[in-house]
């Protein structure tokens, strides 16, 4: 058993590195898209709100696996050169869009949790809407976003396991390949894989809980 662990370890660590890269890119792009969607939804224009609500509803209502297949298999079929994705960008785009729905709800919830009077007071001192958002509302809302964003990061890490299906050598895929070399040691290899995910996710969850005690926070929509 020890030699199986030692011989597959470098291989699995490569996979973990890939998981790390994808999750980092995803939290960046997912937060970016999500922040824009979430802030637009607080403006209260029905013409903006309905399509964005539909976007969130559609992505929430279908499994991530479907998004991945649509982006990786369906979009290239359209023949538009811009939509011909390699596996890696397809995975990051699909995960980022999925993540953005969570982030959007968190950003919206946090902004709405800041008392209205704060924004109104800022406006009455002569700040523009943008200044009031930037200097008064967002700094207060930001603190409320930190704890649920920890939860989102864990959702992303776990979500990266699914992109193994389009052939990206992240942690699960590395585990699968290792089991082909050691078919009798399935339990050891998948156990190691699970432990690596745990080592990555658990500190994030602990941080989220610590931050929730410190800053309070909006609830993560399930």
């Amino acid at each position: 058993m020890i030699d199986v662990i030692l011989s597959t370890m470098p291989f699995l660590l490569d996979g973990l590195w890939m998981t790390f890269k994808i999750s980092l890119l995803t939290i960046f792009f997912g937060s970016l898209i999500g922040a824009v969607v979430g802030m637009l939804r607080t403006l209260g224009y029905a013409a903006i709100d309905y399509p964005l609500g539909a976007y969130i509803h559609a992505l929430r209502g279908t499994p991530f696996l479907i998004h991945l297949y649509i982006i990786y298999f369906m979009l290239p079929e359209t023949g538009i050169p811009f939509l011909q994705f390699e596996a890696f960008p397809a995975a990051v785009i699909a995960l980022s869009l999925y993540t953005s729905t969570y982030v959007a709800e968190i950003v919206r919830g946090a902004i709405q949790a800041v008392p209205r009077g704060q924004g109104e007071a800022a406006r009455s001192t002569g700040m523009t809407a943008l200044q009031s958002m930037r200097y008064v509302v967002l700094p207060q809302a930001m603190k409320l976003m930190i704890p649920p964003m920890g939860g989102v990061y864990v959702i992303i890490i776990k979500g990266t396991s699914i992109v193994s299906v389009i052939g990206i050598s992240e942690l699960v895929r590395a585990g699968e390949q290792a089991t082909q070399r050691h078919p009798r040691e399935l339990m050891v290899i998948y156990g190691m894989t699970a432990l690596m995910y745990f080592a990555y996710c658990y500190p994030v969850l602990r941080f989220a809980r610590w931050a929730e005690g410190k800053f309070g926070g909006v609830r993560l929509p399930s």
Partner: protein
Amino acid sequence: MDWILDFYNYRVVGQYLPEFARGVGSTAWISLLALGISLSVGTIVAIMRISANPILWRIAAGYVQAIRSTPLLIQIYLIYFTLPALPLLGRRLDELEGGVIALGLNAGAYMSEIIRAGIESISRGQIEGAQSVGMTYPQRMRHVVLPQAFARVAPPLLGQTAVLIKDSSLVSFIGVFELFGAGLVVLNERLMPNEAFLTVAACYLVIYTFMLRVTEYAQRRLGGAAS
């Protein structure tokens, strides 16, 4: 009309309608079985979690942490591939059993947190009242605390069930036929990703919207009565 047929050939989808219907049925059946497991596991874990016995609550807390910190896919692989290796079972699990057990154990951890919140929200007066009429701990749980707790957390439990239904698509990885698998059949036999995945996505969306309505209904009906 040609461009529609080009993009989405509904005639082909019509041909595969029985396949999609079988997929929806299978997804419903898998979710129902997993829901049963997850509610049982969730209730037991929640009660263990609030127990004063440190061994019990530590086991429960560790279980929830372990499930929440690892992907469902790995949990499915671990259970499907390694449970049969344990001597007590004596036979291989088939794909459906492995998938349903993994899904149930996974959702059970999330359900347990919701149920625990429900139990903790029951006021002390209720428990003291039950004690004063001479009820034992199991009687109090069964007749006083749990019925009210479940009524109170029914909406989040239904929301978690919607997540469970979406997650059930992952059992296709170990070869269980369900809604997503129906899409894979169309992809493999006809090489038509649009027809395959847009149809599957639409089916999931209908199921999800239905669950959302049920949740809202439960919120209206139970929100007033129980709180």
